[in-house]
């Protein structure tokens, strides 16, 4: 994405291209049930919506608070103007990740390498003791894992940062 081209006035199109965003009238309903609004610094969805609409590029790039979201979607439920604030949070993270590689979450490398964020299927003794079957994981299926990786290679985040996924 070339940020030089679009004027900052239209930054919202690069981040969260939906007309609904402009219906936000700062009511703060999205904050009332938000767990992460209790953080320090607090995640203030209302302010993020403002920053996107106003096109405050620097501020948005350096804002860590979208990553404190617990994904509970209460804001999404409560927002009276259908801004879909949780989707906006994800959109801001996507835009940050695309413009600053240090934002790319390490968990996607785990998923690329073994299919999961946790080591699934290696606790065979414990599983056995509990009477559980062996899991047919993708980690243990080289052919399927290769298919999965090749698919991901064609997606923006993996192709743009392929050095992270080497080996």
């Amino acid at each position, binding site marked *: 994405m070339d940020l030089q081209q679009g004027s900052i006035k239209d930054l919202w199109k690069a981040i969260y291209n939906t007309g609904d965003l402009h219906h936000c009238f700062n009511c703060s309903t999205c904050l009332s*049930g938000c*767990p*992460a609004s*209790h*953080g*320090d610094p607090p995640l203030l969805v209302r302010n993020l919506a403002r920053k996107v609409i106003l096109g405050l590029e620097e501020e948005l790039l350096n804002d*860590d608070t979208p*990553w*404190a*979201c*617990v*994904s*509970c*979607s*209460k804001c*999404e*439920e409560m927002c009276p103007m259908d801004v*879909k604030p*949780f989707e906006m949070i*994800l959109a801001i*993270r*996507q835009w940050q*990740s*695309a413009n600053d590689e240090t934002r*790319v*979450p390490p*968990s*996607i490398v785990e*998923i690329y390498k073994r*299919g*999961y*964020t*946790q*080591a*699934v*299927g*290696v*606790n065979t003794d*414990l*599983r056995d003791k*509990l*009477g*559980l*079957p062996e*899991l*047919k*994981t*993708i980690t243990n*299926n080289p052919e*399927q894992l290769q*298919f*999965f990786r*090749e*698919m*991901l290679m*064609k*997606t*923006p*985040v*993996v192709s743009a940062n392929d050095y992270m996924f080497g080996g």
Partner: protein
Amino acid sequence: MELCLFLGCNTPAIRPDVERAIRATMPVLGIDLVDSDNYVCCPAFGAFPSTDIDSWLATSGWNLSIAEEKGCDFVVQCGSCYSSLRMGREHMMHHADKMARVNELLEPTGRTVTGKSKVRHVSEVLYKEIGPETIAGQVKKSLKGLHGIVQYPCHTLFPSEVVGFEESARAPKGMRQLVEALGATVDSYSRELQCCGGAGGFMKSTPEQAIEFAKTKFDAILDETKADFIAVSCITCLMHMENVQNTLNKRVGEERYKIPVFDYNQLLALCLGFDPKQVASICNVSRDSVLSRI
């Protein structure tokens, strides 16, 4: 009825006794479970959904193709997995261009996705498909005399348009009725619908505040209820609500927070007569006070 079991990562890796409880109980109630071979991470919201639409939906599409191939719907316990799969499917169903792009990405892998398989939460299957009366009729060992409180997984409530199954997401009834079906008394309290705060980056980015936030909930439970146990239906709620109690005890210097936490299917398994060693053996807050009374 057949359902395809989507386990996610945390349950099979860290809390396989919950997996055991699900696998033990559902067939008793008429739900046959089929395994999801070669599934991958749902994807978690903090992973591909935070980087770009293609990698997010391609990963959802990979998983959905597994259930479609088996010809049934998914059943999921982890709240985040449930919500992520529902949202991914919703995006594809409402945007033909996104569905087409996902199929283009899936094509070389020999997979396709149409959206014909739905994604269901285990508590919804228990509540709507099976029903509290049927469950009550199967109980061999009741929870009579015990008080519990329920933690509704927010990921099954909000946004109700995408993930919901309750008549009102603001006054949900499912978990309460399911626990009552096992014979327990379910106490209400002021912060019943407050999120546990355990998912996503809140705990990672500002742990102090996240623990304080959880404390308000636990203080309300202690002050307002006679809870002998907490029933959840999400692996993150389960692990977080145990861990936070231990952290809080260290802070206050006494064992004030020690309410056992169970996944609903674990309680159900115990009431159906399954061996606690298999279905409820892994915990960070002792469950003896409850297990000794069932």
